[in-house]
């Protein structure tokens, strides 16, 4: 059977989601593939703000952008290491993928590459108004993919 795809990111790391993924995997005797997306939206929006509103030059803006992403990568590595330890404890086979970029695009790309049939993902706490105005990454992923999704509220 294919691995369950557990989707995490710099802002989606809910312990509830992680527990749900590993319990499901153990129950169904499947492995877990943990995808950690280094969401570049925040550093890119800061780069834009610094150059557009702040009129800061490209070099210091780029240095900050890279510094933020480097920090996200350290956190991603740490999180995946912790998950690896958890997988060993629970005797669940485990694989990791780190991607950097747009959360929605990278999720869809990995779902396609891994031919995932079951995805577990966190839904961030937001108001309905915010979702209506700014859209929802999960709704977009759900629209564009065939596979089953288990969405766990933060």
């Amino acid at each position, binding site marked *: 059977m294919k691995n369950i795809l557990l989707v995490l990111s*710099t*802002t989606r790391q809910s312990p509830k989601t992680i527990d749900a993924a590993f319990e499901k995997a153990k129950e169904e005797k499947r492995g877990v593939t943990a995808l950690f997306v280094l969401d570049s939206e*925040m*550093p890119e*929006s*800061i780069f834009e*703000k*610094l*150059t*557009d*509103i*702040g*009129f*800061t*030059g*490209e*070099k*210091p*803006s780029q*240095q*900050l952008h890279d*510094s*933020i992403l480097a*920090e*996200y990568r*350290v*956190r991603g590595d740490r999180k995946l290491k912790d998950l690896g330890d958890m997988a060993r404890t629970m005797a669940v086979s485990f694989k990791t993928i780190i991607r950097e970029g747009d959360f929605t695009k990278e999720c*869809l*790309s990995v779902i*396609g*590459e891994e031919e995932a049939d079951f995805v577990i993902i966190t839904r961030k706490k937001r108001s309905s108004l915010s979702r209506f105005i700014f859209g929802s990454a999960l709704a977009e992923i759900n*629209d*564009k*993919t065939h596979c089953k999704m288990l969405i766990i509220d933060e």
Partner: protein
Amino acid sequence: MNVSIDRRPLWTILLVRSFRYIALGVLFSLTYLVAHRVPPEGLSQEGLRAAAVFGLSLVLWVTHLLPLAITGLLAIVLIAVMEILPAKDAYALFGNEAIFFILGALILASAVLKTGLSGRLALIMLTLFGSSPRYLLFGIFISSALLSFWMPEHAVAAMMFPIVIEIARGLELRPLQSSYGKALFIALAWGAIIGGVATFLGGARNPLAIAILKETTGKSIGFFEWMLAVVPIVVILLCVAYAIITFFCRIEMESFDRARELIAEKKIKLGRATLEEWMTGFIMTATIILWMFFSHSLGLANIAILSVVSLFVFKLVSWKDVEEYVNWGIILMYGGAICLGSAITKSGAAFWAGNLIIGSWASTPSALVIIFAVLAIFLTEGVSNTAIVAILLPLGISISNSYNIDPTLVTYSVAVPAGLAFMLPMGTPPTAIALSSGYVKVRDLLLQGIILKILALVIFILMTRYYWPLIGIKI
């Protein structure tokens, strides 16, 4: 080959993809229609055209449908094409003294960043204050603030971020869980923001305000004069902001040795101060002294440009460094904002709009200060503070002229509060930088920010009432 299929309804896809073009088309069409209407009573045809261009610029600056600088450029072109001002006069405003002042200040700041002097100064201050968690928090806060007195606040926040993130990581502070981590990044952001209003150097909005004041009234505010009026307000705000941060964010750290070690390691890695750092520091200090005490006789821009030339004489920066560290869009934004301010004031549109929106509510100096301070301090949360100055100040100056109120009052009342955006990331880059750390949530900034904002407004108004008369600013 993996192909992702967008399953949304076709109309949704088309609308999302073409929304920006539709919005721009509607805006340009509305501007054209408004500009060619019969003007209302009290407004000339030029005034109506100026008001239309002003409205278009306002919407573009707020919505960011075009970059701020391009909107500035568009404003100049429309002012010339619609014959609101003669083309020669419109484009001549690009040669405004304020533009050369801020250009010089940005190049000086780029030298301070490039040589590493700013990083060294930050580490020296952190070493002085790094003896306990509370002192370190204060050190980060005060370093951000003091550096923002002399350098753009956005550059200070960007420079401090890697230092503070390394400290947070070294102390094993957990993102979104550590109260102390939250405090560190809010201190970084708020220190930079508050320090940035103290002089002409902390943010582009202050020299822009002076330029609009000078172009429309012939009056000016000197470098030292500004500091005398604003620095005491900044000192009080810094105390209040620090109190708010420490009230809401527990300092749960006990073991602190790792932070001390990290700061010491970074200082050792920097090595001794280089000749370039010493010379940059000397030129910067000399420039600031000249600005403070000789700006009226020598001119702010002249001092700035001569200092820039000296940086190149001593090879402290190269032209490539300047290209990398300075964003030339500021020239376009400035030129456009000054031209727009001049156009709407000279055409009478600012007076007409100001009277329509605010009317006789601002007929006294106190009312003028309060109204414009309130507008500026709240609008700046959603709009770039430079745009706030470009939008509000011409209106305020026109109203103050009609009631024989000193226009320098409204200049302070718009420029200072416009720099105090504490709550939302779209207001100013330092708050976005704090959010990106992962330690701060939007609701932390909203809650603590609204308290600081209200207190800042009260402090500003009280200082204008009781302190400014002591230094000769009559209200």
